[in-house]
Every structure is written in structure tokens, then in C-alpha cells.
């Protein structure tokens, strides 16, 4: 498996994957969103139920992207594996974007349904702090010129913030929060009618495909930039 993680092999394999991935993203996301926008109104939530189809996938990706960054950072720190650090770096802006979407769509849904844009409950606060960790992680990468130093320090910051990714996911189980529990749960059985659940699953798949497509492009960009930097250094040395 590790041979696919070498920069050259990574570039070769991902080049073949990208176009099919973009096509699948466009198709699945298109179907999911059109389906989601055409569902009937919920008897309690009215048409705001349509916000579910972007809020839930965005919130899941916000948390899971942070988990991916943490795993990549650990692998990078232990194995001194450059592509792992670069994948974590590439994932950060995508995770930050999905976190921002989750925060905005949550607030916009909350105003008519809860009567407020924001409450300082455990889940919402944890997600907001996780968003700040995303920003801090990206700021640290760009603030340090030496790549080796930047990747190590950023990885440590990422690992410190893991607690807030964990709380973003599980806070609703530990504390009484205004935010409802999991909409989709294997343990609790079906909580959403199929009318809404099927397009939600399709939107989730579409969002994940979009995530992987953008992640691959960003990781390839980071590898190219690292190569260009090395070539520049060798020119200077010569």
C-alpha cells in the first residue's frame, strides 16, 4: 500500500482517477440536489427541511475531514511521510469550507425553527472552535517558510484540535443540547422518512465525491509546489 503513497505513484494513480471522479460528482450531486429541492414540505419544518440536504452532509464532512487530517498528521509524524502531511494540508481548506457551510446553514435553519440564529450549546460551540482550529492550522502552514518545520508544528496543532472534532460529533450524547441528536443513526434505527432519507443519502455521496475530487487536485498541487521548490533550491545550490 505504501508504494501508492510515494509522490510519483500518487500523481500517476490520481491522474487517472480525477476525470471519472469529477463526472460522478456532477451527476450524483446534481441528482441529489434536484431531488432534495423537489421533496414535499415537512409537516413541522415546512420547506426548511430542504436545508437538511446540504447541512447534514456538510457537517459530516466538516468533522470527518478533521479526523482525516488528524490521521494523516499522525502518520506523517511517525513515519516522516511527506505525502501524509501534504494530504492533511490539502484537506484543511475543504474542511474549513464545509464547516462554514454547516455553521451558516445551521444558523439559517435555526432562526425559523428554534427562534434564534445561534446558541452557545455544546455541539455548536465545538463546531465553531473546530472551525478556528482549521483557520489556525492553515495560518500556521503559511506563516512558516521551512516546510519541515511547518508540517511538524501544523500537525501538532491539528492533533490538539481533535478533541473539538470529537465533541462536534458526540456532544449531543454527553450534554442536553438544543441541537437534536443524530439524524442518521445505525443504533437508533430509522428517524427520517424515506421521502427525505433517500435524497439525503444521495446528497451525502455527492458531497463526499466532491470532497475527494477537490482533495486530490489540492494534494497534487501541493506535491507540484514541493517539487518546484526543490528544483529552485537545487538551482540555487548549483
Amino acid at each position, binding site marked *: 500500500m505504501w508504494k501508492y503513497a510515494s509522490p510519483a505513484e500518487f500523481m500517476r494513480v490520481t491522474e487517472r482517477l480525477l476525470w471519472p471522479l469529477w463526472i460522478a460528482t456532477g451527476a450524483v450531486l446534481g441528482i441529489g440536489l434536484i431531488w432534495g429541492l423537489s421533496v414535499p414540505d415537512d409537516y413541522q419544518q415546512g*420547506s426548511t427541511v430542504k436545508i437538511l440536504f446540504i447541512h447534514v452532509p456538510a457537517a459530516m464532512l466538516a468533522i470527518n475531514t478533521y479526523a482525516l487530517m488528524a490521521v494523516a498528521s499522525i502518520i506523517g509524524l511517525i513515519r516522516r511521510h511527506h505525502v501524509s502531511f501534504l494530504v492533511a494540508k490539502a484537506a484543511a481548506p475543504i474542511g474549513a469550507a464545509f464547516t462554514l457551510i454547516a455553521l451558516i446553514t445551521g444558523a439559517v435553519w435555526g432562526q425559523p425553527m428554534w427562534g434564534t440564529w445561534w446558541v452557545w450549546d455544546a455541539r455548536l460551540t465545538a463546531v465553531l472552535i473546530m472551525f478556528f482550529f482549521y483557520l489556525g492550522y492553515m495560518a500556521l502552514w503559511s506563516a512558516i517558510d521551512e516546510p519541515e518545520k511547518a508540517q511538524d508544528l501544523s500537525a501538532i496543532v491539528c492533533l490538539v484540535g481533535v478533541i473539538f472534532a470529537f465533541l462536534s460529533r458526540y456532544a449531543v450524547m454527553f450534554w442536553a443540547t438544543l441541537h437534536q441528536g443524530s439524524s442518521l443513526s445505525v443504533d437508533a434505527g430509522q428517524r427520517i422518512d424515506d421521502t427525505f432519507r433517500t435524497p439525503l443519502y444521495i446528497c451525502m455521496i455527492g458531497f463526499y465525491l466532491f470532497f475527494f475530487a477537490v482533495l486530490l487536485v489540492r494534494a497534487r498541487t*501541493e506535491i507540484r509546489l514541493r517539487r518546484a521548490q526543490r528544483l529552485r533550491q537545487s538551482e540555487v545550490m548549483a
Partner: protein
Amino acid sequence: MISGDPYLPYVLISYGSTAVILGLLLWATLAANARARQALEDRR
């Protein structure tokens, strides 16, 4: 039906802001990729 929906602005703001954020992310990603590709070609 749509014109009488009091929640329509909330749905539009949600979908609109999502489209803007993901659009900016995609644009920044593709632009950075094009710059990196060019930087590497210039060095070769």
C-alpha cells in the same frame, strides 16, 4: 405555492451561500493547481 412560502428566503440563503463557498473553493483550487503546474514547468 412558492410565493406564499414564508421559509423560502431561508432555503435560498442556505443554497446560495453553499454555492458561493463551494464555488470559491473550487475556483481557488483550480487556480492554485494551474499556478503550481506552471511553476513546475518553468523550472524544468
